[in-house]
């Protein structure tokens, strides 16, 4: 028998991990000399109580959905893709090239084009580590870390030396043409006299992220390819026996993962910034790890975890504005979530399993 009911594994463990992370964060806030309750109130107020706050929360969540799904898909093939940051940065480049050099007649076509660019560039950046893992056994964690740095150097070079408009000081591309601007939530949901999501960056890409969730769910649990990806993830020797080529699965899973990471470029670069800037991925590639771990590699879990982190990000910005708590608090919370849901999983799991074993004995 499994040691615990499935619901405990899926709901209880992440929840307890989250509470532990929250307690430690509260202690950190106390240590700074602020009130955790007040900080929480500020965060809720800033992120959830106004539509513009939601506009930011959902904007961040969109990024995290893409990168979280990316990490999840790779995890199902037992690959730890830590290179989401670099893949997202390249995705941003793909978006920028599509938006800068093709005269799109309408935003919908531009969206299509930039999505293809984002996915293709993200996938491309995952391809080399994937190939090296599949064919030469180079550890994907190390290679994807290295590729993050190489991506940063590459974008730095391109923005400084190639894409920067003549005379501009800032290492950023030119602004995209107005025809490529995506509909924002403000323009989509505001009515006359009632402006919603004012000034916030949330845009239509959020719905694409939701579609991506459904797509990943179908892919992993309902498709042949997903069956093969999960087989390979659980047992490579099993996959070989079944005639599933491990190297093919590694490469395909990483391509999908890289493409998903790259897709966040549509949201950040085209949807929000309207031009390619340095560090366009803003660390979202790494948050994808926390989101995937918390979401138990399930798209629905990823969606919830992304919303949570979107809230934390927006709330954290509010905190930094109104209190002496710097934005870096969010990085600490993110670290704690990764630590508890990822590395210290057994610290929560073992006592719970013992508890359930005792309950079961009592019943029997």
């Amino acid at each position, binding site marked *: 028998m499994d040691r615990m009911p499935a619901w405990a594994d899926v709901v209880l463990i992440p929840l307890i991990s989250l509470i532990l992370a929250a307690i430690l964060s509260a202690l950190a806030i106390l240590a700074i000399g602020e009130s955790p309750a007040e900080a929480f109130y500020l965060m809720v107020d800033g992120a959830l109580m106004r539509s513009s706050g939601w506009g930011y929360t959902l904007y961040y969540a969109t990024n995290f959905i893409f990168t979280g799904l990316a990490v999840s898909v790779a995890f199902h093939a037992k690959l730890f893709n830590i290179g989401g940051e670099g893949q997202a940065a390249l995705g941003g480049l793909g978006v920028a090239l599509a938006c800068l050099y093709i005269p799109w007649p309408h935003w919908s076509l531009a969206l299509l084009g930039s999505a293809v660019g984002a996915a293709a560039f993200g996938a491309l950046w995952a391809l080399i580590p994937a190939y090296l893992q599949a064919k030469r056994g180079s550890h994907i964690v190390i290679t994807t870390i290295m590729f993050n740095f190489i991506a940063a150097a590459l974008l730095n070079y391109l923005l400084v030396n190639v894409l920067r408009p003549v005379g501009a000081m800032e290492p950023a591309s030119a602004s995209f043409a107005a025809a490529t601007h995506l509909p924002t939530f403000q323009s989509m949901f505001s009515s006359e006299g009632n402006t919603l999501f004012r000034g916030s960056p949330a845009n239509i890409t959020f719905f694409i992220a939701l579609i991506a969730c459904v797509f990943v769910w179908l892919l992993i649990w*309902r*498709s042949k390819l997903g069956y093969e990806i999960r*087989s390979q993830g659980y047992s490579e020797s099993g996959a070989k026996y079944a005639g599933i080529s491990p190297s093919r699965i590694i490469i395909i899973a990483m391509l999908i993962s890289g493409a998903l990471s790259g897709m966040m470029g549509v949201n950040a670069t085209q949807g929000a910034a309207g031009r390619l800037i340095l560090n366009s991925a803003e660390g979202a590639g790494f948050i994808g790890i926390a989101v995937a771990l918390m979401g138990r590699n399930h798209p629905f879990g990823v969606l919830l975890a992304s919303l949570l982190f979107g809230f934390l990000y927006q709330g954290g910005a509010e905190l930094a504005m109104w209190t002496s708590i710097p934005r870096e608090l969010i990085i600490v919370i993110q670290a704690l979530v990764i630590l508890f849901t990822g590395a210290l999983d057994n610290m929560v799991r073992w006592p719970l399993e013992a508890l359930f074993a005792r309950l079961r004995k009592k019943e029997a």
Partner: protein
Amino acid sequence: MTDSAPAIELKGISKAFGPVQANKDISIRVMPGTIHGIIGENGAGKSTLMSILYGFYKADAGEIWINGKKTAITDSQSAIAAGIGMVFQHFKLVENFSVVENVILGAEDGAFLRPSIAKARKSLKKLADEYELSVDPDALIEHLSVGHQQRVEILKALYREADILILDEPTGVLTPAEADHLFRILDNLRKEGKTIILITHKLREIMEITDTVSVMRRSEMTATVKTSETSPEHLAELMVGRKVLLRVDKVPATPGETVLSVKDLRVIDDKGVERVKGISFDIRAGEILGIAGVAGNGQSEVMNVLGGIMDATGTITMNGKPVPLSGKAADGQSRRAIGIAHVPEDRQREGLIMEFTAWENTVFGYHLDPQWQSGPLMNNAAIQKEAAGKMQRFDVRPPDPNLKAKNFSGGNQQKVVLAREIERNPDLLLVGQPTRGVDIGAIEFIHQEIVRLRDQGKAILLVSVELDEIMSLSDRIAVMFDGKVMGFREPATTDERELGLMMAGISGEPGTEDWKAVDENLTALEHGETPTHG
């Protein structure tokens, strides 16, 4: 000596792993200077018991007495201090360390290595002379043969001045001749006054070397007897709990057309070692060809090539058509497409995905079949229905398709695999170690299913390290040694003694075996030379 205190006395040992009770209230006494056998089926709890004695696991209840003194054995350290050494079934050696480094690990003299190594060298030489245990102290473990690696394990124990030596299934990986050499070593050790516990599931070994024997069944100790006062039949009955059918009921085979033809098959593994060195054989419809051999002599590779897991060179035809031996056209999918089904040797690592449910495993390997698809997605409802039917027909217990494979017993896991592969109605069935780790009731069922498929006119290739199984199931037997087929025999006209010789690389006529030559042959092999006989 008989009136001295027992070297080992276990009193009321119990141990559970979660809900699984591995040892129930077990007590034994072993007198010094004797060899005590512990026999029982796979999973009877023998290894767990000995791991407790060696401090690898902690018992939930019970006492351990060594040389008449109650001894607390909390970890391996205290077991070693109490004079206990253990040779595990899977050796615990550091592969890229030298022999001498492995021997001193944990038994160093002082904080610096040089003096320890010098001392160990001397000591190894002495032990080698004393007990026929010679090994090159500077050789790396990964370059040694299995037999020599085992010697290193024994040397490790003796270097720690163990008086009590536990060996867990020591002959599983050895040829009969190597096993004989081991038994000579054990005999020497007994003469020196050492106490030895030998865990095995082979009756022959118990009869050959032990003084006393305990039988374990389902986590309990069912009997302890003097070896001289018992018989193999009696022990078998004690092991299984009822009379055992040692032979499978089957009618003589009526072979038809040749289904599979293998010519000059060669396999080179990832490390560049030639594992199969040009073998040829045919299998006809309605016959079972059994491949006998000590594990690691190329049988697994033959299975893997036929199953599409490994590449090879040579010629294979199936129903007269050539079979590709490398590249995409030689993968498991292509093999299934031409009517080859495969029950792999290691069901937990290959045949099943342990984290998948039973129903997901029902189509493993056949998951691309159109009948399991609906549009771009998989037709899970159809697969679940199929799984329920298969589990009923093959009496899988519990018959719950939603249970994960890891939660079934070994026998029931094997039935899930068999149901999947046999019901494909293949022209050729590859079966590796069909009953390894399977309880006795399931063994009979599995053997019957294999014979039934044969009687339907299918070709079957059986690989097993259990000679009994080979003898009772096969219509023809090929013996493999060192990547080559030593010869073909028929069960009616051969015996285990002849097969055993062939498994050691000697294909001499009955009655002419020369044990000295066998030993020389083996020594040559261990040093990577070509044997002169065979």
